[in-house]
């Protein structure tokens, strides 16, 4: 896709127009052919395409954020078990019945954490965008 990038004269920020007529008059825009509108960056001195490394790092951060959101969503569904066990412990009650009762759920939580760590490591270890995109966040 074609993108017309320019620096906003008042805000001094990067703006990317997807239509040439969207560029304000008397503003010099730079035309880019990109796959993603987010591939352009203003580094404080110039408008340019992001490097592969920059794109990879950015996508890693987004993917890690996404992983964290999904993990938190999943694991929070069984947080009530932890609350119950901890409450029993504070009241000096026997927690073994609870551990027995919820053993399967507690095991699932461990597996979830393990899977989260695996995915997190995989994301951090990815060296290309293709490798990163191939990581499906499925917990």
């Amino acid at each position, binding site marked *: 896709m074609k993108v017309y990038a320019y620096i906003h004269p008042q805000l001094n920020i990067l703006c*990317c127009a997807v239509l040439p007529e969207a560029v304000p008059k008397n503003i010099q825009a730079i035309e880019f052919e990109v796959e993603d509108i987010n591939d352009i960056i203003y580094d404080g001195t110039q408008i340019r395409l992001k490097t592969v490394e920059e794109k990879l790092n950015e996508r890693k951060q987004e993917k890690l954020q996404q992983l964290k959101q999904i993990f938190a969503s999943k694991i929070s569904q069984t947080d009530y078990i932890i609350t119950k066990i901890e409450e029993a412990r504070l009241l000096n009650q026997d927690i073994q019945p609870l551990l027995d009762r919820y053993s399967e759920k507690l095991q699932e939580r461990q597996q979830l954490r393990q899977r989260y760590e695996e995915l997190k490591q995989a994301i951090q270890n990815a060296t290309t965008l293709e490798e990163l995109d191939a990581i499906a966040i499925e917990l």
Partner: protein
Amino acid sequence: MANFTGTILTRAGRNLLAKAQTGATLTFTRVALGDGILPSNTNLEDLVSLVSEKVSLPITRIEVVGDGTVRLRFVLTNESIETGFFIRELGIFAQDPDNPNNEILYAVSYAGEEADFIPSPQVIRVEHVIDVYTVISNAQNVTAVISDTTALATQRDLTELANSFNNLINNISTDQIQDGAITTSKIADFAITTEKIADSAVTLSKLANVSYTPAPNVIVPLNAEGILDLSATYVKSNVYTFRRVNLTGATSDYELQVGEEAYIEFSNVTSVPLRIAVPLVTCFYQILVVITHISVGNLDYMLLPNNTTYSDQFSCWCMTISGNSDRLRSAFFHDLYSGSADVSPYILTQFVSIGTRSSFVMAGGGNTVSVSYSVWNNTATPWISLGSIASYSNQNLSGYILIRRLR
């Protein structure tokens, strides 16, 4: 007809004419016929009546000829006589201006031996239209007592009448027609065809009590494009409807009006310009997006005001069943946030307030739902075009969009 050689004014007639020349009205009252035989030494000027009047005939028409004479028309008919007679004498009578009850023999004519016989109606019915001329000199006020009970028209009368009538009909002007004279009930159904009305003949000023707004129970015609015009100036409706405008493939911005709905189809693209001009800060839009196909998962939806991204100028909050996010973005942003499960169909409804520079989105797709709210923090940049929708991460999208201007 008997051979009358001409009318001779009687002495009384001459006196009457003299009065008429000084301004009195000369009123002819009737014509009479008789069979009297005048002695050979009779001076016609001395007569004050016919010798033997047999029939009195009303005048049916009078015409001042212009050469000092007047033409009197009467109908010779035998319907009122019991026995036939020779028409030897003819008298023209006029009203005495000094005594309207008196009648004066104004002029006479005598046929003598060259009389004609008029039979009784039992023998044969006779009707002749006869013109008789007599002198009026330069009298100004000449009239006649015209009978309205006997009227026979000559061919000449009919021709004149026809010409006169045609002339009248062909030249009727608006001011000759009385107000209210032509009512709807007087006009036959389908009598006035389009061909009978000249181009531009019917102007608005000629149409009293006519409005563009149809009366109740009137069927509204389609316009020249075959479209029913439901604009507020034409049809007032209690039903809230949207007039659809197809902006698929539009190349310039269209100013969507309140009550209009833009329709846009898109196929296999990463961004779709909405082509909606924003005329006022008070505008409020609803955008409905149905994405029927996504090339890959994880669709992040953006609305780019003015078809442009502005780095970190948008505060975006998103709430999903997977969690919440709170970030600065470069456009109005929405994410289902279900990872790679953002699959089609993806249905999204977005409310956009130009005045508050904010957007609220509700969406569902894949295996999740979410809501989000975004605010464009920069108020210095005018919002002149509603913008483009775009995918955040280069997904190709297919589907359709409905944009309604609500305010």
